[in-house]
């Protein structure tokens, strides 16, 4: 008798459990990814002359479409440009400015700017962690920088954002990637011309 009672109880339990879980045919919530970096925009403002804007837009993030790159015009040799980089997530409306997060975690992020060897150009960081965190650290972040190209040529300019770099490693504070470690959140290369 005992076994029969238990088997009936278990069947009831099964039916009960089944009926509560099969009710919810509700539509799953849509997810708009918050962290995806759809837009990388570098604005180079010269002391005199035209502003140069480099943009990479990839609205589907990890989706199949490749980023669309645009460059507003050539750089002028011998001119100092003030550079600023903006990262955005344009899958949400209004677009989310990712710079705010980078600023809050500027001790865990650093941008690197590199030129191919056929370009005689250099970048100098113009910000430090202390600007965003007031933590007394003079380590650069790279949200702002200055850029100067010395001679006319064409080549590539690469923007890299490293998450959790080893900022104290040799050369990292000067913008050399070699010992930075960490992982890449952004890596985009623009073909630029210096006139």
């Amino acid at each position, binding site marked *: 008798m005992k076994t029969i009672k238990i088997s009936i109880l278990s069947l009831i339990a099964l039916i009960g459990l089944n009926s509560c879980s099969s009710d919810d045919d509700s*539509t799953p919530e849509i997810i708009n990814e918050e962290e995806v970096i759809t837009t990388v925009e570098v604005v180079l403002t010269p002391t005199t002359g035209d502003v140069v804007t480099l943009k990479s837009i990839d609205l589907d993030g990890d989706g199949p479409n490749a980023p669309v790159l645009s460059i507003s015009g050539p750089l002028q040799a011998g001119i100092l440009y003030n550079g600023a980089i903006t990262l955005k997530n344009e899958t949400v409306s209004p677009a989310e400015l990712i710079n705010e997060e980078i600023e809050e975690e500027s001790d865990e992020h650093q941008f690197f700017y590199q030129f191919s060897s056929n370009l005689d150009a250099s970048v100098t960081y113009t910000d430090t962690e202390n600007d965003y965190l007031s933590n007394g650290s003079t380590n650069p972040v790279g949200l702002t920088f200055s850029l100067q190209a010395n001679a006319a040529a064409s080549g590539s300019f690469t923007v890299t954002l490293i998450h959790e770099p080893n900022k104290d490693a040799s050369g990292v504070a000067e913008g050399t990637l070699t010992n930075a470690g960490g992982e890449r959140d952004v890596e985009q290369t623009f073909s630029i011309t210096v006139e």
Partner: protein
Amino acid sequence: MHSQKCDNTLTGTVRDFHDGNILVNATLSVNGYDIYAISDFDGKYTLDGLCAGFYTITITHPECEVAEFGIDVNGNLSKDFKLEHHTEELSAVTVKGENVNKGSSSSAETVLQSATIEKYSNASLGDALREVTGVSSLNTGSTVVKPVIQGLHSSRVLIINNGTRMEDQEWGVEHAPNLDLNTASSITVVKGASALRYGGDAVGGVIVTDISKAPSKDTLFGKTILSGASNGRSLGLTTSLLKAYKSGLYFLGQGTTKFAGDLESPDYVLSNTGLNERDFSLGFGLNKFTYGFDVYYSFYDSEVGILRASHIGSVSDLVRAINSGTPNSITDFTYGIDAPKQDVQHHLAKISLFKRFENAGKLSLDYSFQQNNRKEFDIRRGDDKDKASLDLQLTTHTLATNFLYDAATDLKANLGLEGSYQENFPDPNTGIRRLIPDYEMYSFGAYTTVDINLTDNLRLDAGIRYDYSQIDAQKYYQSSRWEERDYESDFGDLVVDRIDNQLLVNPVFDYRNFSATVGAHYDLNSDFDLKFNLSTASRAPNPAELFSDGLHHSAAIIELGDLRLDKEQSYKASVEFNGQLGDFSFSLNPFYNQIDDFIILEPNGLQFTNRGAFPVYEYAQVNARLYGIDVEAGYRISQEFDIKSSFAYVNGEDLDRERPLIDMPAPNLNTTLSFFKTEWNNLNISLRNQSVFEQTRFPDNDFDITYVNDGGQEVTESVAVSEPPAAYSLLYFASSIDLNIYKQSKLTLGFYIDNVLNTSYRDYLNRQRYFVDDLGRNFRIQLKINY
């Protein structure tokens, strides 16, 4: 009584009432007469010289309660006796006889007993299973260990935990089985699909763990194992207690806790590879001769750190890792576990009932409930920092019934039905598009198996199974992905809603699967036996194969499922030949496995993002075949010394492309020299050499990628992801001794050294081989108390 000839014979088999196991060496004596017999290797006995009349027969067996049976003799008779068989939990003096076949009697299978399982108390199921020849493991580091049976793993290997099929998101290569091996008193590995009772989709095989069986006597016993290891500075404690009554009532409880910090390779700390695990199980039940029930609940909770250096953002990180040969992130040893990590809980609750019908068999009914919660944490930014990237809750209800017919001496049959309902809920709060979508799955299976003793030394078995499953999913696709996959033409009618750049799709797919097995087991004589088995298994694509769509952080690949996939069907032939020639024993197990529409993940081009380019891996179907052999040989040199060797080889080929299959275990050879002396408190010392050869058969999936090197130059380089690491040999030392500390209690002390020579090596089947060396030397101690 009229005069008569006393030449009647009573023959039959002595079996274990609980599981129908044959009982060898049972003594049968006829009360009041000098007539007795001992059951032979097949449990068979013959009592001669009986007159007509009523006799009482007393049967004794070292592992059983003494039983008396009355029998009316009038002519030659055949009668099987069933005894209550006690598993020897208490101080394990007698090794339990061969377990009941989990597969069919003809299938190649291996059983790990508790002595072996206990050695791995502080490790994982996958580690213990490597003891079985032909079983290797697919690792993510050293703590996520998935068993690979004769070259196949994940959804192709079913894990049956105390009678319930584990539904723990086993499709993921980075998802280890969510069970504590300390709950198991024995583990059976069936190499193939012949265990139809547990599922028809075991293309690779079945792993069955059994918990301790309670004896029907008044007793209380248990054991506690304390383990410590130098590598990872880990500590593990497991304890179990079982209270049983003569009435058949029992209660059991068991708990395990383990923790480990960062593991170490010979040259550096493997940062963020700690582990924290807490498990327990509780049960009670009643085991009467003819009826009984079991109630069981187990909980598994683990937090596993994933090597920091293996979490990469882009392919150029991967190229740097491969080129540098050392991890880019090494920090000092810590017990702390940060992202990336996995946090998994598994609940299993089960009610089983059985009723035995005289002259028919045993009817059992099982209901089980499982809930698996898996959270995976990646390295994230801003407010999402402490949020999981993946948060899945998989709930499964299963109702199963089986009727075992065992009334006839030479025929045993099973008939069973199984139904299950499963629901997956991916929590949208992760803020990351779901890897596996919301789905509901209904499945239904029916099977029958028969096992016939055709002659004294030939057994035949056969079985068939049919499974129906329906998956009803709701998934958001990116519009760009939907177009790129060209799904609109085939699946456009499944689209429910189009919102901005995403589509909500409701695929409802049905799968009908057929599986079967047939085989023979032939005892040539008492020293040689031969098994031959043919099986076909059919597996429906799993949710990952159908739906995955996104970036894999540890491999820097974009993984794409395919809605067009259909089931895969395998045809496997296996032979097992066991023999004994004096002090020399051997076992040969060759197999051939042809798999039609085998689902593989293969590279197909690159995809560009703001983080650089990523290789795209797509699920596709090809015809494949695997063949190989597992060999064991042993030689008893003297009373104290013996030497054992095992060798496993698998050869996998993609027949469509005429190239090797990826991730096939490299040939490996294990040789163990042991010293054992009972008189010296069961002192056991052994030295084992494990040689893993280089896998020379692999598909070339290397790809060219253009990236910016550290000097700012754009370079095009081939990314060497395909080539397996070099061969390696490791040395293991093991020793143990038993001490009697009190009347009923025994203390076993064990001391072990893994990777004695602190060899640096990488293994082909470890997904972290691109980033770091494998484990360095490890000293382990273990204290076990039986009471």
